[in-house]
């Protein structure tokens, strides 16, 4: 096990597997003021989040973590990407993003599942062209 907390990019392993949380400098729930669960409906990790383009449409945000998330969003980005770029645990990113969307500070795209056959055909064609 590495002495470094595993915030960074993993290699082609599972980044040495489990890392003891004793080495974490900031525990995830501290970023969310103690909550480990959003008080609103939680969005899936692949949900694409975007911030209003117009500065006028941006309400004042006091929470520092919320502000970091909005500042990151110069374009749409998934919750997982927010987590990776800000180096906050996935769980914290889900909580923060879900709450910001619920508060109207950010907007969330829709997620699609395998029940949509047209979509699956579209994905297949796109993969073939890749």
């Amino acid at each position: 096990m590495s002495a470094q907390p595993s915030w960074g990019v993993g290699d082609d392993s599972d980044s040495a597997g489990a890392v003891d949380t004793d080495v974490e400098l900031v525990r995830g729930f501290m970023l969310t003021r103690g909550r480990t669960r959003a008080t609103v409906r939680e969005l899936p990790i692949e949900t694409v989040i975007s911030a209003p383009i117009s500065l006028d449409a941006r309400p004042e945000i006091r929470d520092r973590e919320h502000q970091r998330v909005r500042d990151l969003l110069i374009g749409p980005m998934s919750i997982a990407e927010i987590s990776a770029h800000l180096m906050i645990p996935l769980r914290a990113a889900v909580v923060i993003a879900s709450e910001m969307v619920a508060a109207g500070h950010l907007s969330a795209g829709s997620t699609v599942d395998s029940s949509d056959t047209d979509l699956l055909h579209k994905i297949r064609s796109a993969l073939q062209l890749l």
Partner: protein
Amino acid sequence: MTSSKASSSTPDPTERASTRATQSAKIVIAGGFGVGKTTFVGAVSEISPLSTEASMTSAAAHQDDASKVDTKTSTTVAMDFGRIAVGEEIVIYLFGTPGQNRFAFMWDQVSLGALGAVILVDTARLADSHAPIDYFESKGLPFVIATNKFEHSPVGSPEQVREALALAPHVPVVQVDARERSSVKHALITLVEHLLVLKATASAPSPAMA
């Protein structure tokens, strides 16, 4: 606190403002330690695979009180993922999740709502794939088996792999070289075609998709 590898904190702006799509879907890439999940993701992803940290708190999410989370047993694990744009409308995320049982706490969050999964297998370590197979079967999440090419590993025919893993006859088994884009593409297309076949055969509503 950051290691020298923490380059994900300063994303390339072109990679960051990645997509105009707002619709998204995900595919799970599961498999044992070192089986090539990140290589697989990187072979087709339009961005260098990113890493996020999933932690035990997701398993403890039933408790609102964070103080009840037993930090002694909590673990964190890096999960690498990538992205593929499908036209301008949809973006697909590929999440590589560790296949070992002790990481099962991550699987719910990653697999919930996923289109399906690719289980990467090293034929020298077939036992590593039992846990993810059991899990996806129990959740009704469709999956394909992709045996990654390793020099040290025996080359089994898909039928031998199917038998060794006790797979249902309808589960596709493909051989991949996770370093090869075309090979990874083929595995993903096999998964999507598998989903289409399942849709067609289960046109009558059925709770079990797999």
